[in-house]
């Protein structure tokens, strides 16, 4: 969800910039003005690596997260394990049941350096871990002859599988360390007893992991408190107790002094819940329930709609159903929280003719990236995806500026998300990763002025609207100036006047009469 927010916000900002902005800027370049021309720039030594070379504790956290029960796909792309190699740098690997890598994501800046030019898809998990460790070494994140800590956390639905995977990886790491003469302490953090206690406590009282953790931490600080009693209290009641007893919670909670105690507690619990591993997926509502909830919210009945998707998905630690259906020429996209059935998000779009995703066929394999891969797969590759998208849009490949080209496993279909920009229009494409077919295409340009000529209001009308907005009587106003301006398909009246010792200015939209940029200042 966070990613969607970021993407959407990013797009929204982009849409607000006028198309002719650059030409406006160009016109204002004063070519007669002296400007500083090039002074040879020295390439500075990259500070980042320097910092890591000096750090003593090269902490490597390996987190293996298991399947989220009853998962999605029955082919090789089924997610079985998610491995996080974390913190300095942070890499997340998704692997399938056969311990083959489906995808490797760089989560922070350092990790991007590590994963640069490496395509780990389809490789065996241990090969991938080796490659990552090797890259970390090469880039200076693991230093020889310096004591480091390697933290391995395994979370998996299937405990036995978790242990197996973890043992494999640990052996792997130890091998690499030995050959590279790095001494490291491997810390085993799978299902620590503390986590188990928290989980049991949470289950016993039917509260969330976050709340359980907070209560247990709190009781450790004040032994007069009884965790079992607290478990049933609301956050407000608990925060009252914290305040009355004057317990300092700033060391168990990421404390924000601008928020109240209760707010801090609530946020902490929320954070912990988001981070908490999925222990079990029991107690979730059924797919049918989720569909029903979505329909209710959309005020439609089953017979009105055609369902296109109903799947379990995980985002930010929240398990939800991704429900999609079509009705009345519109496409509905719902996210329904899997335990309580709450509608997390809802999206309605005009239905675009989708291209059916053909069944994955065995096509000739092309390397994903330029660098060689250990194993071959049948994806068409990013470049081909870009070409297909550009062709479909009728845009010359060389004219297109590609903003984003990413492989995605969202929605159970392997595809590339290709976003590009050409001639003032922003295109979003989804290209099937196996067949190259166009799955989705969208284009957004700035709204052009409408075809039918719209009626403009008169200057007089604009003036009176402006005066009205300022609360000024026509007879009191003087030095009135009214100018018409055309900008980006919009027509504005720029109105200025003085009255009562003030100077006013504003814009009036010539079609809607809407006032904008109202200003009032002392008349000096």
């Amino acid at each position: 969800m966070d990613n969607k927010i970021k993407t959407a916000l990013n797009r929204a900002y982009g849409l607000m910039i006028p198309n002719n902005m650059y030409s406006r800027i160009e016109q204002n370049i004063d070519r007669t003005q002296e400007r500083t021309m090039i002074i040879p720039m020295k390439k500075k030594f990259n500070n980042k690596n320097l910092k890591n070379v000096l750090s003593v504790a090269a902490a490597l956290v390996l987190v293996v997260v298991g399947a989220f029960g009853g998962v999605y796909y029955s082919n090789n792309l089924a997610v079985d394990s998610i491995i996080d190699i974390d913190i300095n740098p942070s890499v997340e690997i998704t692997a399938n049941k056969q311990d083959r890598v489906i995808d490797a994501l760089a989560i922070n800046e350092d990790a991007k350096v590590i994963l640069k030019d490496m395509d780990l898809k389809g490789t065996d998990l241990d090969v991938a871990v080796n490659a990552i460790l090797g890259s970390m070494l090469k880039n200076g994140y693991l230093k020889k002859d310096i004591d480091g800590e390697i933290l391995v956390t395994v979370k998996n639905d299937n405990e036995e599988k978790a242990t197996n995977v973890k043992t494999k990886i640990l052996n792997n790491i130890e091998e690499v360390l030995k050959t590279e003469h790095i001494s490291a302490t491997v810390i085993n953090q799978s299902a620590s007893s503390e986590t188990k206690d928290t989980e049991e406590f949470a289950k016993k009282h039917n509260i969330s992991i976050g709340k359980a953790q907070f209560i247990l931490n709190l009781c450790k600080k004040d032994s007069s408190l009884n965790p079992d009693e607290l478990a049933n209290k609301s956050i407000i009641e608990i925060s009252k107790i914290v305040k009355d007893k004057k317990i300092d919670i700033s060391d168990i909670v990421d404390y924000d002094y601008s928020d109240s105690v209760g707010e801090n507690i609530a946020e902490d619990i929320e954070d912990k819940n988001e981070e908490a591993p999925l222990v079990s997926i029991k107690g979730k509502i059924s797919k049918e329930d989720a569909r029903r909830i979505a329909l209710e919210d959309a005020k439609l009945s089953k017979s009105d709609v055609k369902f296109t998707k109903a799947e379990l998905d995980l985002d930010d630690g929240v398990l939800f159903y991704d429900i999609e259906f079509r009705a009345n020429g519109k496409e509905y996209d719902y996210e329904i929280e899997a335990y309580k059935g709450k509608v997390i998000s809802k999206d309605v779009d005009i239905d675009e003719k989708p291209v059916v995703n053909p069944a994955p066929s065995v096509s000739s394999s092309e390397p994903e990236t330029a660098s060689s891969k250990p194993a071959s797969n049948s994806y068409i590759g990013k470049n081909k995806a870009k070409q297909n998208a550009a062709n479909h849009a009728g845009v010359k490949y060389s004219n297109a500026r590609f903003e984003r080209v990413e492989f995605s496993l969202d929605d159970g279909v392997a595809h590339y998300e290709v976003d590009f920009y050409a001639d003032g229009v922003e295109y979003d494409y989804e290209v099937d990763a196996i067949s190259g077919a166009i799955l989705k295409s969208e284009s957004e340009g700035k709204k052009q002025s409408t075809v039918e000529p719209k009626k403009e209001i008169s200057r007089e009308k604009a003036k009176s609207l402006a005066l009205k907005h300022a609360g000024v009587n026509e007879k009191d106003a003087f030095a009135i100036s009214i100018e018409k301006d055309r900008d980006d398909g919009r027509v504005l009246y720029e109105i200025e006047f003085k009255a009562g010792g003030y100077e006013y200015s504003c814009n009036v939209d010539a079609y809607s009469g809407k006032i904008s940029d109202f200003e009032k200042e002392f008349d000096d």
Partner: protein
Amino acid sequence: MFIVLLTLEEISKTAYEIEDLDIEAIALGKQNALHDFYIKAHKSIYGFALSITKNKFDAEDVLQETVLAVYNNAGNYKSHGKPMAWVLTIAKNFALAKFRDEKKQASFSESIGYKDIDFSEIDNIQQRLLIEGAFTALQDDERSIITLKTVSGLNFREIAELLESPLGSVLSKYHRALKKLKKYLEGSI
């Protein structure tokens, strides 16, 4: 110690990642260098500026002033961290100056709020809601931080430096902003 950052991958940055070479090209007077720079950087500059000025026309002015400043001073640029941070520092100064000017003028009942911004050109409902949320539900600094994180390609450390704010604050404000936006989305559906 270590900072546990986002659990999500960041948007691939090929669009707006400007490099030293791009600035150098401008300074060398290479053809189209400024235009190429503009294509890569305009969203970051505009978004950041808008988050501060809360006024579209001012943001456009800031965008223009910043691009021109880059054009005129490219030769002075010394490689130090990301060029985008340099560009945005310039933008920040212009934006703050504009914002202060507006504040001085609007010292009466007109408060500078989101109502001054017209988002109607954004067709996509979710996008429009989100950006509205950013301007109604978030504090100024929360909005600037989440905007930077979304459009500029700067990491948290760089954002903290740009905004002259402690890294920890930036992190918690960012997460708070995300939560508020989610709540805003849920509330308006």
